Structures are given as structure tokens and as C-alpha cells.
């Protein structure tokens, strides 16, 4: 299917409220409220006429001061059997969680961790939502537009092994105290 056919097929078969379909520079685009993402992805993956079996990319855009809601989570799906692509955009406000796609696509695990790390968007029911590119002690989310580009946050190497050792020793003492 080419993008126009794909969009018309999606328009006729999907029945959610608040969906928006367009074709933008040769790619079909669906805009959807964030809470519906997992339902939509399930249909896209399981219906044989779409068969989007690959989550190619997952990222977010920060529209601080330009749009509300503030963030837009952007998914790119690909179907290896039909050779068509789809972009799904889910608008989400700060602090509002997005349903995780880890159950449907294994790769969503790392992609969602990256979005959480760099944008601070939470994914509900994600099994391991930890920072991936930055270290756990990092404060803030650097790809947000209000994060200063020249801010530095070095990780002091002397603090953490010592602290960890202290904790271990204290715990050891607790355990073996008579």
C-alpha cells in the first residue's frame, strides 16, 4: 500500500475518537491522544492488512511555548510484509504517562528508556524505566528546551564507590549484630 491508500484504509477501519490522518511528505501520519497509543499499536500490529511488525523509531519533541500539550511522542512503524511506513504522533503533557509498548515490541524497552532519560516522559507499566544514556545521578532531562545547553553536570568519581561501600558495610554490621 502506498501512503494515500494506507491512510484511507486506516480511516475506514479505525474507530477511535480524536484521530487525525494526513499524508506528510510521502508518509502516512496519525495523530492520537497519548492514552490510546497502546490500543492503536495493538491493532496496527495484529490486523493482517496493516501488519506493522517493526517499531523502527521512537522519540519525542518538546514544543515548549509553541504548542500545548507540551510534548509529542513520535513513533515510526514499518511493516516488513507490506513494505509500508506509518508515523504516529501522541501529544502528552508534562507528568502525564504514556502507555508503554514493551509488551508489543521488545525494542520499545530501550527506546522508551531513552525518551524518559532525555525528555522525562514517563511510560506506564514499563518494566525497567531507568536512565540509559546518562547516569542515575543526573538531574533534569537535557533535551527539554528549557535545559540550558551549556550546563555542566560532571559525575564526581570519588563519591559513589565510597558511598556504596559505606552502605554495604553498614548493612553488614546490621545483619551480623547480635
Amino acid at each position, binding site marked *: 500500500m502506498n501512503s494515500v491508500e494506507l491512510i484511507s484504509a486506516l480511516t475506514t477501519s479505525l474507530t477511535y475518537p480524536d484521530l487525525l490522518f494526513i499524508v*506528510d*511528505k510521502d*508518509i502516512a501520519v496519525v495523530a492520537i491522544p497519548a492514552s490510546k497509543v497502546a490500543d492503536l499499536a495493538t491493532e496496527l500490529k495484529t490486523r493482517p492488512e496493516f501488519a506493522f*511488525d*517493526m*517499531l*523502527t*523509531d521512537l*522519540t519525542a*519533541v*518538546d514544543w515548549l511555548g*509553541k504548542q500545548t500539550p507540551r510534548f509529542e511522542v*513520535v513513533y*515510526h512503524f514499518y511493516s*516488513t510484509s507490506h*513494505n509500508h*511506513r506509518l*508515523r504516529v504522533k501522541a501529544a502528552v503533557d508534562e507528568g502525564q504517562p504514556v502507555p508503554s509498548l514493551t509488551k508489543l*515490541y*521488545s*525494542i520499545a*524497552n*530501550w527506546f522508551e528508556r531513552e525518551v524518559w532519560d*532525555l525528555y522525562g516522559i514517563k511510560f506506564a507499566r514499563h518494566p525497567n524505566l531507568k*536512565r*540509559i*544514556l*546518562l*547516569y542515575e545521578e543526573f538531574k533534569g532531562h*537535557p*533535551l527539554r528546551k528549557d*535545559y540550558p*545547553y551549556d550546563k555542566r553536570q560532571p559525575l564526581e568519581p570519588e563519591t559513589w564507590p565510597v558511598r556504596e561501600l559505606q552502605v*554495604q*558495610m553498614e548493612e*553488614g554490621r546490621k545483619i*551480623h549484630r547480635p
Partner: protein
Amino acid sequence: MLLPAMSVMPLAMGPSHPAMHGIVRINLELDGEVVVDATVDIGFLHRGFEKMVERHTWNQGIVYTDRLNYVSAMMNNVGYCLAVEKLLDIELPPRGVYLRTIMSEVSRVIDHLTCIGAQVMETGAMTAFLYAMKAREYFYEIVEMCCGARITTNWTRVGGLCADAPGNFVEALRERIPLVREVNVELDKLITKNRIFIDRYRNVGCISKEDAIDFSFSGPLLRASGAPYDVRRDTPYLNYDEFDFEIPVGTRGDVYDRYLVRLFEMEQSLRIIEQALDKLPGGLVSVDDKRVTLPDKSDVYGNIEGLIDQFKLIMDGHGLQPEPGEVYHSTEVANGELGYYIVSVGADTPYKCRVRPPCFVLMAALPKMIIGQMVADVIPIFGSINMIGGELDR
């Protein structure tokens, strides 16, 4: 302090380990020599690629794409420029397109040679590694001819190339193709039927086609698992639809199939280069549009119009300003699908420039490949992924 009796032994492989090309850490849990659990820590080379590109003009971003996959930097340049050109809706003159195709394939051969060479070296074949490095050198000379640099190429510009290929480019490349092909044959003779490597590579690190698709694999690893997906054929860009080339596909998805797929792909890349050289047209390499391409230096220093054109592209707040919009463009680089998702709000800098690095998804699946294998198998499996730190951590 007493340590509890441990049934499994934790072992941190990396971040600074000779076999972890670049820096990455695999936290293994070993029962004897068998890996029972593994997690991967990445991000040691994170430098904020996206944040940097957001602060620079559209053309300045190209410099940063060199540092993604530094083994085949030209393909990153090409991918980025294709995405921006799609946003600007401009098309290159045929010579520019052909040169981009040729150099993309040259870079692919370089990347595959590096991967195969490093992979077999880690399992003990120093000779094969040196052969691969020798062949890589032939093609690095071509890269150097085109842009003056070998690693950090910065070769393309939005709307074209930094310069046309030099006069002896075609002859030099034609001379080198048989030399590289000869090395490929030598590598094939040394490794493919060598008992040592078959024992080390066969049925090691297998991943099924379904799992590979579930993890969004692309490139040689997906094809080794049996899915014939290649961006060059499925969504053609540049002029790949004009060439006759085959897409090698494996059956088992193990390290050996990945090695074979890469070996065959190099031959196909050489075929594409030969066909493109036969048809290489003359003419301009960049679009003839003063709003996109910088004028000749002689014009800049020689007449007022040239100076104004230069000013209009270089000064802050002028320069390229694509219409507001967004674009996702994917290209097939040596490791798989490299996607650029670029958002413009009509300013002279990108609002967002996301890179979809091909080896990020491969690293996400690494625990799945190594759990249940021996600890010595971690090295060839990791080598077959061809992880490049610059592109993984951005």
C-alpha cells in the same frame, strides 16, 4: 564483612576492555563458564548530539554526523543531507547523486572490512585482520581524495557536495576495485571454510527472524536471520533502483551467517560501484541555486553578487530556513537502517534532529543473544554486532 555464598559469579566486561570496541559494559552473571544473565550499560560516550545540532545551522550539523559512525562517516553525511533536502524539497543534479552512491558503497566496504577484520582478530586471526586493513587502506585513499580527510569526512553539503571528485577519481577507484576484490577472496579462503572459525561461529548467538523483527533489527543482522529487508531496495533513495545487485540472506541468524552476509555484501557493493562508474555523468555536483549552495570563492572575492550570496547563506539569522515541517528519512548504512527524524520550525537551525542509530537496537538484543552461551562466545557475538560507540551513545 561477610560475603554470602554465591552460586553465580558477577563479571563486569568493560567499559574498558580490549574486546569492547569503544566503551560499553556488559554485566554478566556466570555459572561456571555459562552466561546465565546479562545486562548492557551504554552511554559512556554520550555527548549530546541532538542538543548540539539544535544549536547549529543546517549545514554545520553535518560535522557532527561524521562522529556517529566514524568508520563509514560518508554515509552518515549522505543520510543527514538527504533528510534535509527532503524537507527543502530539492533534488541533486545526477553527478552529485552518482557520487553519493559511489562513496556510500565505498564506505560500506570499508565498514564491513573493519567489522570482519576486528571480529576474526578477536578470535585469533591476526593475518586476516591485516589483510582487511590493507584493503581498507585502498578505499580510505579514495575517501581522502574526495574530501581531504579519512575519518571525519564532512563531505556532503545540503544540496550537494563540498567539492567535485578530483580528475583522476574514476581511474583511481577502478584500479583499486580488483585489489579489494582480491583481498575479499583471500579473506574467504582464510576464514570461510576454516575449521577454527566454523567451530567458533556456527550456531553461536542465534536470533530467529521473528525475534530480530521484534527488536527492529535491520542490515546484515536481520538479513542473516532470514528477512530480506534492505532499505536500498524496499524504499529506494539516491539512485539505487538503477543498479543490479543482490541481497544476501542467511538462514540461521548466527555469527557465521552474519560474517557470510557481510562478505557477500562487499562484493555486491563493488558491483554497484562498477556500474555507477560506467554511467557516471558529468556536470554539476550541487544544485544550481544561490539560496542553497555557496558560490565559488572567485565570485565571493571577485564581485558583489557573489559576496552577497555568501553573506546570505553564512550570516546568523539568514542561511537555509526550511519551511516548518518534519521528515523521517532512512538510509541503509553498513549496520542497518540509519534514520534521521528532523523537525523544522522555519528557523536557521533544526528544531530537533533525532538519529535512529542502527546498532542501538542490536545492543538492546545483545542479552538475548548471549544468555545461555559460553563466556568465550560473548566476544564473537559482540564482534558480529559491529557496535560503534559514537553512533550508539550519540
